[in-house]
């Protein structure tokens, strides 16, 4: 059995290079087809009638007029939504309709009469006192002796901070096309979980998993919200059956996409911090609360990254009548990061310390990666010219434009998930890799090809990558938790090494060598110690005769030490923002945003950087614009559209600088670590602290809108600096 490991850095031909995504030309030219582009012969369209109330009991449903409409092929009351059922959030689906086209389906919805009995609701949780019995406090957690530590602390600060519920807002909304052939179901979904959907569709539909096929080439955003078939996916399959098995297409309307297909929980906290005069943080206390819908919301990992020796933590989950939470990139970390680093930054300001010095002073609280953070902080500081541009809180420059710097740092896991790759070497030399994974637009296809190319000593273009089909291709985990790159690269590497072992056994006699003396490099199979003795790749593979070599490689979710370091978990990462705030209007503009990010061995520097850039854009969005808005009285959503659910545009993001941490043998030796989550965690902290540094006062709640910035300035005592 080969020893599974990455080639030494000096011997890498492909890994670490900047290679454009192999599917980019298809995407920019429109050739790439997403599930929402799928059009099957005879396809019908499903729409769902949604409950307008936040909390209600269904009294009666009359679908007869809709059923009679020409063009309507099926009408079905959704599972558990019949008369007597309780609806827990506005826009939850109640009745599904399938018709010959979208317009007919929509018109049919207008003809359905549902009577509701309204029940009391709660949709906004910021005011914990108003949450009544919806608030469910958890047991307090105490470490060390916080009371004593606060007594002994030389400086104590206390503040309220918060960040509201935001939504995933996938540009390709949730949905799929389902198609029956007898009892066999083919699904064309928009998903982050190709392999995992097989069983998830089979089970509720009561068909054998072997009857389900999943097909997906591209997905227009998931961010953690697309792992399951969703209630509407299963309903669509039922509706399709009811309509005689014709293919049915269902994609959520924008309002449902924003308000029922996933949200990130809010987080509010009152935080108290104690420190010594020299800046050493000694005591932490918080009471936090959050909602992620009807089940409340869990506690974020507070305090974040830095573990304070003495702490008291209290959390209250608030159940609201709002669409339920789903994983949103780095679940609970962005909230924790913002809350922690806002409070710490306020402490630094109280101590009159440069916050960079303050963090360096406390860096040992970051534990095992303290030194990495220290070096990353210094690198980020250099890139943003921290020492040159930083000033104490409140830009002293005259005029209404105030500039400021802020920072935050983060951590995440990112070990590769369980994944299997099937690598085929054909006698003609062509190579393909099949994996039941998905490419969320991040470069998964490209990375698989690069790993196979590196391993087999071939150009990247020689590798055909097949993904997005289940169960046709070997099972690979869902793309969540930054686990994909580690999973697919380790599996592909193993498959490649296994394949070479078999290939070398066939080729060795022709080179009068032992298989163990061979290597595949530069399009040749050659003797490691005597490269002149070689066979070009195609001549080598011709030795396979007429039978392709089909070999698997598996990455297990839990690593075994004997495996060599293909993938690992645990990263740091530092971000720093430079903003300008117009103190007369409260408008925040991004000048520059720096991200320094480690992720172990970097397979493709370009796609790695893209991940960071995309995260930074998302971070600017939730720092400055994004917020779910509900009307308290009616419990209905008010910004379930892309007009008032604001996102940053290209003109709003400023200059981005990404520094991938790569000149560090220690980090490289750790193997591949996922990158989907880490860089999206710290923007709130970096931007929020930059705003405070600019205007001289904390804006306690994200997003940092004109209303909130002006309110903070007013509290400070007027609009002049």
């Amino acid at each position: 059995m080969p020893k599974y490991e990455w080639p030494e850095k000096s011997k890498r031909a492909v890994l670490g290079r900047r290679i454009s995504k192999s599917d980019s030309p298809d995407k920019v030219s429109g050739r790439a087809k997403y599930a929402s582009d799928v059009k099957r012969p005879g396809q019908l369209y499903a729409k769902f009638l949604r409950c307008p109330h936040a909390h209600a009991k269904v009294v009666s449903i009359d679908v007869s007029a809709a059923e009679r409409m020409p063009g309507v092929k099926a009408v079905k009351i959704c599972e558990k939504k019949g008369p007597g059922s309780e609806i827990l959030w506005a826009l939850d689906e109640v009745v599904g309709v399938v018709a010959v086209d979208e317009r007919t389906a929509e018109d049919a919805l207008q003809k359905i009469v549902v009577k509701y009995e309204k029940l009391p609701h709660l949709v906004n949780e910021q005011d914990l006192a108003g949450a009544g019995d919806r608030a469910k406090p958890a047991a307090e957690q105490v470490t060390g002796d916080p009371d004593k530590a606060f007594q002994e602390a030389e400086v104590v600060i206390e503040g309220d901070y918060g960040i509201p519920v935001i939504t995933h807002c996938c540009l390709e909304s949730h949905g799929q096309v389902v198609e029956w052939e007898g009892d066999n179901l083919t699904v064309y979904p928009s998903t982050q979980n190709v392999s995992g959907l097989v069983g998830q569709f089979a089970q509720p539909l009561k068909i054998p998993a072997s009857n389900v096929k999943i097909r997906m080439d591209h997905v227009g955003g998931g961010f953690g919200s697309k792992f399951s078939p969703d209630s509407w996916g299963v309903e669509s399959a039922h509706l399709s059956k009811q309509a005689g098995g014709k293919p049915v297409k269902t994609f959520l309307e924008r309002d449902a996409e924003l308000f029922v297909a996933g949200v990130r929980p809010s987080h509010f906290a009152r935080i108290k911090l104690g420190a010594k005069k020299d800046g050493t943080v000694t005591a932490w206390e918080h009471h936090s609360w959050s909602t992620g819908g009807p089940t409340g919301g869990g506690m974020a990992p507070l305090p974040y990254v830095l573990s304070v020796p003495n702490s008291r933590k209290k959390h209250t989950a608030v159940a609201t009548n709002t669409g339920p939470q789903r994983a949103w990139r780095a679940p609970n970390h962005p909230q924790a990061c913002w809350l922690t680093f806002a409070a710490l930054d306020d402490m630094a300001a109280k101590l009159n310390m440069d916050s960079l010095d303050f963090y360096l002073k406390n860096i040992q609280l970051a534990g095992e990666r303290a030194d990495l953070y220290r070096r990353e902080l210094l690198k980020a500081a250099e890139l943003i010219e921290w020492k040159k541009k930083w000033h104490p809180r409140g830009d002293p420059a005259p005029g209404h434009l105030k500039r400021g710097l802020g920072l935050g740092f983060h951590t995440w896991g990112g070990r590769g998930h369980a994944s299997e790759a099937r690598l085929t070497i054909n006698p003609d030399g062509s190579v393909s890799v099949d994996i039941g994974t998905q490419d969320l637009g991040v470069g998964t296809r490209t990375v698989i090809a690069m790993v196979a190319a590196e391993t087999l000593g071939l150009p990247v273009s020689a590798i055909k990558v097949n993904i997005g089909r289940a169960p046709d291709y070997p099972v690979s985990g869902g793309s969540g938790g930054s686990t994909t790159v580690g999973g697919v690269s380790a599996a592909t590497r193993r498959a490649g090494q296994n394949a070479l072992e078999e290939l070398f056994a066939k080729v060795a006699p022709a080179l009068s060598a032992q298989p163990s003396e061979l290597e595949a490099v530069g399009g040749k199979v050659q003797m490691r110690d005597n490269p002149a003795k070689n066979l070009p790749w195609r001549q080598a593979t011709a030795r396979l005769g007429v039978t392709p070599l089909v070999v698997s490689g598996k990455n297990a979710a839990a690593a075994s030490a004997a495996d060599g370091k293909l993938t690992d978990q645990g990263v740091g990462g530092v971000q720093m923002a430079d903003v300008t705030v117009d103190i007369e209007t409260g408008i925040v503009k991004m000048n520059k945003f720096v991200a320094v990010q480690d992720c172990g061995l970097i397979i493709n520097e370009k796609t790695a950087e893209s991940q960071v850039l995309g995260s930074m854009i998302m971070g600017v969005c939730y720092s400055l614009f994004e917020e779910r808005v509900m009307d308290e009285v009616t419990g209905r959503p008010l910004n379930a559209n892309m007009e008032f659910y604001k996102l940053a545009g290209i003109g709003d993001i400023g200059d981005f600088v990404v520094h991938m941490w790569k000149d560090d043998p220690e980090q490289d030796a750790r193997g591949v670590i996922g990158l989907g989550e880490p860089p999206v965690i710290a923007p709130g902290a970096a931007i929020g602290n930059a705003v405070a540094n600019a205007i001289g006062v904390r804006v306690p709640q994200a997003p940092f809108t004109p209303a909130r910035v002006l309110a903070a300035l007013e509290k400070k005592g007027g609009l002049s600096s």
Partner: protein
Amino acid sequence: MNAFEYAAPTTKEQAVGLLADRWGDAEVLAGGTDLLSLMKDYLPTPKRVVNIKDIKELQGIKYSSATGLRLGALATIEELLSNAAVKKEYPALAQAAEGVSSPQIRNAGTIGGDLCQRPRCWYFRSGLGYFPKDDGGKDLIPTGQNEYHAILGNSGPAYFVHPSSLAPALIALDAKARIFGSAGWREVRVEEFFVTPNNDGDRETVLKSNEILGEIILPPAKGIRSATYEVRQKEALDWPLAAAAVALKMSGNTVQSARVVLGHVAPVPWRSQAAEQALGGKAIDENTASEAGSAAVNGARPLSKNGYKVQLARVAAKRALLQAAQGGA
């Protein structure tokens, strides 16, 4: 969207004949950038849609230094923005047009459509009603999510802000609207074109359901300095949070007469005579502009969550004045 009958007349007479005696039965379609999204949300559910884009007579932009500027209601916002005479003679209008984004919206959206677009109020657009109320009949907006709502002219039942960016500039520049109906043309000052509705079926302009806005006429702007300043949180695909358009007739360095109009602060574009009077006979500097800005928001009565807009409107007026004073005549 409901099924509807579609008509595409080529003359204004035909168009008016195809419209209905009451609102709701028929709707005028120009660029469709607003009407289509309204119809998709079942806000209007017209039986007939009358596309007026083929009426040649209502297209185009014409300028003469003697008679001024004539804007066909069907001219697009992009045509307005790229018109050299507009940029030179009526900077307030060009600056307002520039704010409307994206380019796609400017290419499709018409001047008439911009003035007749319906309120962006998120209660209205979410289907909660033109004058949304709770079960007890109490207005929802004054104590609800009113961060983007009116701070002036907001005694109810209308609390939305008029969304047009072009309207304040046109009013500052003393434009007239020419309206065509079955009885022929009639003319109103753009300032009087907008009305605050009081009843549920009302609209936001003086147009009757069987009239169309045909053209806008601006007097020559010789000796007038004008500017628009918009407070925008985002660079594109968004409306201003508050805006001001000003036009100054100068005598040397001092203001002979001024027109100051706020946008996005009231159910109609909000002309402030208090600000105009505060400027008379004064030179524009930081102080006088600031004072006029404060005068512009005289009488503002913020709702529960939109107090910050008073400050934004004040600053918008101040900055528009400074910008106008700096710009050429």
